């Protein structure tokens, strides 16, 4: 847990004094990722650098795991926090293994343990230890270097990670990949993370909570959903962008909006005539054809009219099927692309789990919006 208590930082003195952060109050809960977001010069990096005392605190206090950082030995404080920076900062004179081993060596681990840990970390960040262990940073691409940067920060398994625009200097394709991998990793590790970013998309993706700063002041500290649906003021709404409803779609998953008990289903051996009556009687647009809980396809009025025999003979295959963990944005995209108003959702075993339709997507957005209005 990291607690910021009226943290103020003033650079310089007298007329040239600049207030970098101004009475900042908030808490990063255990195991959560807080993204510090804002335009350059808003104080987000300064706040991060105060957390490991690379900058001093002018007024106020910062507590890490309940202890005031000013009362801790500065080396001890830093050894207990992983630190990843945008410029990566790998030591070019050390091998990859040597870079990862920096903190364990300072903690006086024995050689064997360091070697094992190094290989383990390389595997975690998806670099083959056999290939990369003894290479030098110059021999690696930017993305690979930052993977090592992350591994180095995790070396001694610190509870806290400080990340200063860690993926900012990596090309977009690699950045998305490394973000995804890091999210997955964080899902297992549950570190307490302070993460500086200037990219709203990255913030939405990585954050449990987003802290938005302007001119050194904390403007809003909330979950990405609330930041998007209920920005505290015009600054925040401008910052998150006019397409914030669409951004929420990137955040919500199919499972958050799906209809788990759709009524427009029909078993494969039902006769077409009966199915048509069911369809028309309920005013459904289509029926999903199932056999042993597997989706065969769908039938509409057009498929069934004047036909005889089982519905399975007329079922048209869905062009795409969705998984519960996919973002709603992808579901909506599929609907627009294939001109279909609903899609089946399949669980990990491929069994039918429900449907997702435009109406349900809209409803989940509206729900979120009104929920936050009630706060």
């Amino acid at each position, binding site marked *: 847990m990291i607690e910021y208590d009226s943290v103020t930082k003033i650079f310089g003195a007298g007329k040239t004094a600049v207030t970098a952060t101004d009475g900042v109050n908030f808490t990063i809960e255990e195991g959560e990722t807080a993204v510090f977001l804002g335009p350059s010069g808003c104080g987000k990096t300064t706040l991060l650098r105060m957390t490991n005392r690379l900058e001093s605190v002018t007024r106020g206090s910062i507590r890490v795991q309940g202890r005031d950082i000013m009362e801790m030995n500065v080396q001890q404080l830093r050894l207990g926090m992983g630190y990843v920076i945008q410029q*990566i*900062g790998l030591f070019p004179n050390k091998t990859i293994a040597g870079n990862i081993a920096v903190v364990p060596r300072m903690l006086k681990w024995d050689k064997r343990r360091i070697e094992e840990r190094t290989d383990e970390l390389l595997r975690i960040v998806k670099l083959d230890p056999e290939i990369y262990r003894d290479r*030098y940073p110059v021999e690696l691409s930017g993305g690979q270097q930052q993977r090592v940067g992350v591994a180095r920060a995790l070396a001694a398994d610190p509870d806290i990670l400080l990340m200063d625009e860690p993926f900012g200097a990596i090309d977009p394709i690699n950045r998305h990949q490394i973000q995804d991998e890091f999210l997955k990793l964080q899902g297992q590790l549950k570190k307490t993370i302070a993460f500086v970013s200037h990219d709203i998309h990255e913030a939405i993706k990585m954050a449990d909570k987003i802290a938005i700063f302007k001119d050194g002041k904390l403007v809003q500290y909330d979950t990405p959903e609330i930041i998007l649906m209920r920005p505290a003021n015009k600054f925040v709404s401008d910052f998150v962008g006019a397409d914030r409803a669409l951004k929420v779609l990137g955040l919500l998953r199919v499972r958050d909006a799906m209809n788990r008990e759709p009524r427009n289903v029909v078993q494969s051996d039902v006769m077409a005539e009966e199915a048509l009556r069911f369809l028309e009687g309920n005013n459904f647009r289509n029926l999903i054809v199932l056999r042993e809980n597997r989706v065969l396809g769908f039938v509409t009025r057009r498929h069934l009219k004047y036909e005889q025999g089982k519905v399975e003979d007329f079922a048209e295959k869905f062009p795409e099927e969705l998984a519960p963990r996919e973002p709603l944005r992808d579901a909506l995209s599929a609907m627009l692309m294939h001109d279909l108003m609903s899609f089946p959702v399949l669980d990990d075993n491929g069994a039918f789990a429900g449907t997702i339709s435009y109406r349900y997507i809209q409803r989940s957005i509206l729900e979120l919006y009104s929920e936050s209005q009630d706060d």
Partner: protein
Amino acid sequence: MNLLIFLQDNLSTALFLTWEHLWMVGLSLFIAIITGVPIGILITKNRQLAQKVIGGANVIMTIPSIALFGLMLPLLAVFGHGLGKVPAIIALVLYSELPIIRNTFIAIKNVDPAMVDAGRGMGMTKWQLLREVEIPLAIPVIIAGLRTAAVMIIGIAAIAAYVGAGGLGVFIQQGIARSHESMVLAGALGVSLLAVVVDLFMGFLERRLTPKGVKA
């Protein structure tokens, strides 16, 4: 031809003077390293001090060597060392300081701030950072400074013969006094050859000591 005959007749003297020359230069360089490198590192922490130290070393460089020997003569005479190896080595050390201090200073200053930031952020002490990162990264530039100093003081050491320090300068000095052309040539060529050989050796050292990951 005369030169070869001269060398043939004076081989042992020539070898001894070369050895004496090299020995003076080596010792001076050693003293300059153990003083200059720490000074160069120390002044990276203080900009004003850095300006003064480098400025001072610059001033020393501008004093002609013969004048420096002259200036030291009365001072060292107090201790009974006005002539001989002592003033020579002091002068050579002083001349070496500028390239060594300046290169060390610049090399440490030029270490990527991101690395220093990463190191500090991970909990390295100043000393650990210096030992594990800054100095290894600065090594090539520091050795380049040593190389400059070495070649330069090999030349200056030839003049030290005038204060009785020995070395290959003896051939030059005596050769001029006696208008012995081959003798002057032997001294001059010896000094040049020494400079070339030492320069090559230092180049080799520079490549060997550059950390592997830093080589382009």
